[in-house]
C-alpha cells in the first residue's frame, strides 16, 4: 500500500515523502481591543496534504476554514497574524517567508480559487491579459508563448471559443464562465497545490454541477484543498475531510468514514441539519444555539453549549484522538 492509500484508508494524515503540504499547530490570532487575550480564528490546526489528494475543510461561517486557507498563502488580513505553528511546502517552511518570497509561491506553487470571481479577477483588464501576466511572471516564456498557454488554459476548463474569451473582460462573462476563468488562472502555472475557497457557493445549482464535474473529472490527479460549508460538495470531490468548529478541526477522516459514521456530535448535527430528499420529516433537526463569535472566550470544548451530550468533563478541552481510523475531539463520541 502506498502512503497515500494508507493515509486514505486510515484517514490519518501521516507525513510521508508524498506530503506536499504539512500544516502543524497553526494559530492565527487577531488582537482584541482592550484585552490581552487575542481572538484565535485558527486555533491549532494540523493536517498533511499528500500528492494527488483532495482535502475538504468543512465548517460554518466563523469556523476558521477560510482563515486557514489565507494563512497557507501568507495573506492573513492585518492585524491578524500567524502566532504559532509551522507551514511547510515540500519540507520547506513557508510561514516565515518575506513578502517577496511569498509572492513567488502564490500562483506558482499554490493556486487559489476564490468564492467570488468578480473580486478575484481584475475588472479593468481582459481575461487574456491577466492569464498571460501570471504566466510571464512565473515562467520563462515569450509573450506569444504565454498567450498560447493562456488559450490552452481556457480550453482545458471547457470554456467555449477560448480564443474570443481571451479578449473578454470579466464583466462580459457569466458567473459560471468567470469561475472557470478563475480556475484556469489558478491552474495555469501547474501549482503543487490548489486551494478553492467556496468556489461554487455563488453559483446556481446547474452551474455548480458543471464546476463540480470539472473538479471531479479533470482534476483527479491534482492536490487540492476544498473549503466549503456544504457537506454534499465535499462528499463529491474530496478524499478526506476535516470538519472545523471555532478555529479547530473537530473531526477528520476519509469521506466514507466521516459521512457513514460521524463521531463528533457537531458532525452528526451538521449532517442531520442538511435537508435530504430521502427523509421527509415533520421537522428539520437544527443544532440549537449559535456558534461562538470573535468576542467569546472559549474554555473547554467549544461545542459544549450547543451539545446535548455535554457533561462536566467537557469543561476540559478534548484532544483530537484516534477513533477507529479517524480523529475526533470529543470526550463522549457518538456512533461506533
Amino acid at each position: 500500500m502506498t502512503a497515500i492509500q494508507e493515509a486514505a484508508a486510515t484517514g490519518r494524515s501521516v507525513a510521508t515523502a508524498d506530503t506536499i503540504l504539512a500544516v502543524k499547530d497553526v494559530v492565527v490570532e487577531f488582537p482584541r481591543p482592550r484585552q490581552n487575550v487575542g481572538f484565535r480564528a485558527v486555533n491549532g490546526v494540523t493536517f498533511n496534504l499528500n500528492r494527488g489528494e483532495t482535502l475538504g475543510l468543512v465548517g460554518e461561517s466563523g469556523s476558521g476554514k477560510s482563515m486557514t486557507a489565507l494563512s497557507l498563502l501568507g495573506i492573513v488580513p492585518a492585524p491578524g497574524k500567524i502566532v504559532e505553528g509551522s507551514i511547510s511546502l515540500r519540507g520547506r517552511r513557508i510561514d516565515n517567508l518575506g513578502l517577496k518570497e511569498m509572492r513567488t509561491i502564490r500562483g506558482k506553487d499554490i493556486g487559489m480559487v476564490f468564492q467570488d470571481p468578480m473580486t478575484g479577477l481584475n475588472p479593468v483588464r481582459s481575461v487574456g491579459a491577466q492569464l498571460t501576466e501570471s504566466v510571464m511572471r512565473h515562467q520563462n516564456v515569450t509573450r506569444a508563448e504565454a498567450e498560447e498557454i493562456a488559450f490552452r488554459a481556457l480550453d482545458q476548463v471547457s470554456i467555449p471559443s477560448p480564443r474570443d474569451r481571451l479578449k473578454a473582460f470579466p464583466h462580459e462573462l457569466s458567473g459560471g464562465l468567470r469561475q472557470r476563468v478563475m480556475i484556469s488562472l489558478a491552474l495555469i502555472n501547474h501549482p503543487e497545490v490548489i486551494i478553492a475557497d467556496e468556489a461554487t457557493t455563488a453559483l446556481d445549482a446547474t452551474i455548480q454541477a458543471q464546476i463540480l464535474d470539472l473538479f471531479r473529472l479533470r482534476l483527479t490527479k491534482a492536490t487540492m484543498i476544498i473549503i466549503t460549508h456544504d457537506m454534499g460538495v465535499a462528499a463529491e470531490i474530496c478524499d478526506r475531510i476535516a470538519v472545523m468548529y471555532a478555529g479547530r478541526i473537530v473531526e477528520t477522516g476519509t469521506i466514507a468514514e466521516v459521512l457513514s459514521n460521524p463521531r463528533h456530535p457537531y458532525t452528526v448535527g451538521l449532517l442531520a441539519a442538511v435537508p435530504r430528499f430521502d427523509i421527509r420529516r415533520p421537522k428539520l433537526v437544527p443544532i440549537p444555539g449559535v456558534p461562538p463569535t470573535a468576542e467569546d472566550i472559549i474554555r473547554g470544548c467549544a461545542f459544549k453549549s450547543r451539545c446535548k451530550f455535554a457533561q462536566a468533563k467537557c469543561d476540559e478541552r478534548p484532544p483530537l484522538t484516534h477513533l477507529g481510523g479517524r480523529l475526533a475531539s470529543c470526550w463522549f463520541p457518538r456512533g461506533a
Partner: protein
Amino acid sequence: MTMQPSSPRVGNPEFLLEAKDLKVTFRAPGGKKLHAVDTITLGVRPRETVGLVGESGSGKSTVALTLMRAHEPEGGQIIFDGQDVTHLTYKELMPVRRRLQMVFQDPYSSLDPRWSIRRVIGEPLRAHKYGSRAKINERVAQLLQQVGLPPDAADRVPSQFSGGQRQRIAVARALALEPKALIADEPVSSLDVSIQAQIINLLRDLQERLGIALLVIAHDLALVHQISDRIIVMYLGEPVEEGPADEVVGKPQHPYTVALLSATPVPEPGGGSKRIVLTGEPPSPIYRPTGCRFHPRCPIARDRCKTEKPPLKEIGPNRRVSCFYAGEMPPPRDLWALENVPLPPGVERAPRPFAVGSSRAN
C-alpha cells in the same frame, strides 16, 4: 375606509392568494423588454405552504415582489382573500398589506441598523395604528417570545444579533399584524446550515399555530421539498412543472426538474458520479429562445421543441408540466438510496415515493 367588504368575492374561493396569468416586464437598456415573468398562474390555500423554486433569473423573486405589489404587473390579476388587488392604490393597499406580509432574504439589509428591535418590530403596528405605546410594547414582547428571543432583545440594535437571530426579528415583524399569508423570499439562504433548520422550523411552527398560508421562494429544491405541500419549478420566467412536493421530487416529469434534482449535492460518499450536467447557462430573459425556453440546454430536445412552445398541461390532480416529452428522462440516480449515510437520531427514512405499489410518501 376604501376597502369594500361588501363587494362580491372574486377568484377561486379555494385560494387565499392567487395570481392569474401574471406577466411582469422590465425595460432593459436599448428599449428592449426583459421578460421577468411570462406568465404564471398560482394559488395558495389557507394554511398551505407552496414552494417556488428556480435558479437566478427564473423570475421567482419577481413573482414574490409583484404579489406584494412592489412591481407593477404588465398583465394578469392578483387576488388576495377574494379581492382583486392588482390595481389598488397605495392607500387602498394598506388593509391588504396588513394581512399579507413578507420576510426578505438578507437580515443584514432588511433591518435598519440604528433602530432598536422594539422600534423595528413595532413599526408595522404604529403604521397600522395598532394602539397605545403600552399596547404596542406588549405586542412586541409577545412577538419576541413567539420567535424565541429573550425579552431584553427589544432594547438592543440589529448589530448585536447573529444572522439567524436577525431573521427571527424579521419574522416577528412580519407577524406583528397577524397576517393571513406570508411570503418568504429565500428566508434562510444567507444562514448557516445548522441555523437554517432553526428558522425553517420556526416558520413551520408559527404556520401551524397561527394558521397562515406560506409562499416560500428558494433555489434549494431539497429545502423546499422539506417544507412545502406543493412545489412550482420555474425556468426563465415561467413554471415548467408543479405538483405535490413528494410527486415533483419523487417522480419529476420535466427534464429541467430532473436536472435540478440531480444537481443537488448529497452528503453521500461517491455522490455526483451519476449526475445529469446541463450544458450552457440559462439564456437571457431579454433574448429568449424560441419554442420551449429550455430546449437549448435540454438533453432530450427534438426539432419540435425548437419551434413550438409546449403548454403547461394538466397531467393529474394538481399536477402540471410543460414538456412534449414529459417523463421521458428518468432521474439519473436514486435519491432515496443513501444507505451508506446514517439517519439522524430519532428520524426514520421516508418510504420511496412511487416505488412499486406505494403512493405519496409520509
